[in-house]
């Protein structure tokens, strides 16, 4: 979160402030840590990648004369002998939102330099992410057993499989990378790297709790992408 009071003078809010920040012949993103600005730029480029996947899915689904498989039947799960539509997907959504919430609190406690709370919450986020990936593996193997392939499936339009594996696979890959980094950063918090100012990898700069916020941005982005996938792929 950028601070309105830096470098000894007060920055103006709103669009006037934006014009002055941009024209100031200094750093443009005032009060924003460079790592955070770079993470945001990366997330912007990632937004474009995911948009291209979802747009090609829209185009593929809109242009096929064959009927599209009904997602609420394809992704239904038997619970106590009754098929419940989208049961697993709904649980996955709630798990990811839970982990997003713990991450937001981890960032908050990180800024308050509450090492213990921050570390446990990052760890909880990592476990949530791991649960999500585990459920996705279950979902994939179930569909593969039912005969869904990138080139054919027993439910309807052949394009369904390729879009499904590509979009959820790329998202699951993001979650997996996030889980790895969450475990690493949970270790870094517990080991007190941000109190001792231990240097990170590939850098001479000292570690700081702002890294937890940067990691949080990535994790919330993964949740954000899932919001769109859930709406367009599973519900539409």
């Amino acid at each position, binding site marked *: 979160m950028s601070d309105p009071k830096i470098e000894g003078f007060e920055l103006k809010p709103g669009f006037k402030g934006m014009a002055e920040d941009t024209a100031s012949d200094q750093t443009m993103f005032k009060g924003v840590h460079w790592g955070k600005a770079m993470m945001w730029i990366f997330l912007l480029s990632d937004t474009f990648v995911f948009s291209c996947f979802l747009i090609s899915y829209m185009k593929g689904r809109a242009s096929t004369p064959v009927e599209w498989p009904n997602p609420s039947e394809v992704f239904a799960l038997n619970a106590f002998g009754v098929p419940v539509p989208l049961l697993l997907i709904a649980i996955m959504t709630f798990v990811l939102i839970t982990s997003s*919430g713990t991450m937001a609190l981890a960032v908050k406690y990180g800024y308050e330099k509450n090492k213990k709370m921050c570390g446990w919450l990052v760890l909880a986020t990592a476990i949530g992410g791991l649960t999500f990936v585990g459920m996705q593996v279950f979902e994939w193997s179930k569909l593969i057993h039912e005969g869904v392939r990138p080139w054919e499936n027993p439910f309807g339009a052949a394009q369904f499989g390729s879009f499904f594996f590509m979009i959820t696979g790329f998202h699951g890959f993001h979650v997996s990378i996030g889980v790895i980094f969450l475990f690493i950063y949970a270790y870094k918090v517990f080991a007190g790297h941000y109190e001792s100012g231990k240097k990170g990898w590939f850098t001479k700069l000292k570690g700081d709790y702002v890294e937890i916020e940067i990691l949080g941005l990535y994790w919330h982005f993964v949740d*954000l992408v899932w919001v769109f996938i859930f*709406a367009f792929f599973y*519900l539409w």
Partner: protein
Amino acid sequence: MNDTEKKQSSSTHNIGIYLWIWGLLFVLSFFSYLVDWYQFQGLLRWSLILFFMFLKAGLIMMFFMHLFWERYAIVNVLLWPMTAIACFVGLMFAEGQYTLFSRLFYFFVGAE
């Protein structure tokens, strides 16, 4: 060092705001699941899905990703490129309709 400490102390927010947003996200996800549960169809289904989707996305970006508290310089750099995506969606939607039309036309009418 004193300067950075001051910067960080002003960066924390009340825990209440996070818990509220967290709860809201749960409720909104539950509602969007209900859209499928009750099998709403047609325009009602699509508009409800989009409404809950944009509300959830907005809450995550505004509060969990802190855009609400960021300066306009970074917020605008991040949000304006989305208009390019919206244009792309519009273009590809039109293209999809045309592809479907030409497929059906040549499947059933045939090229004379």
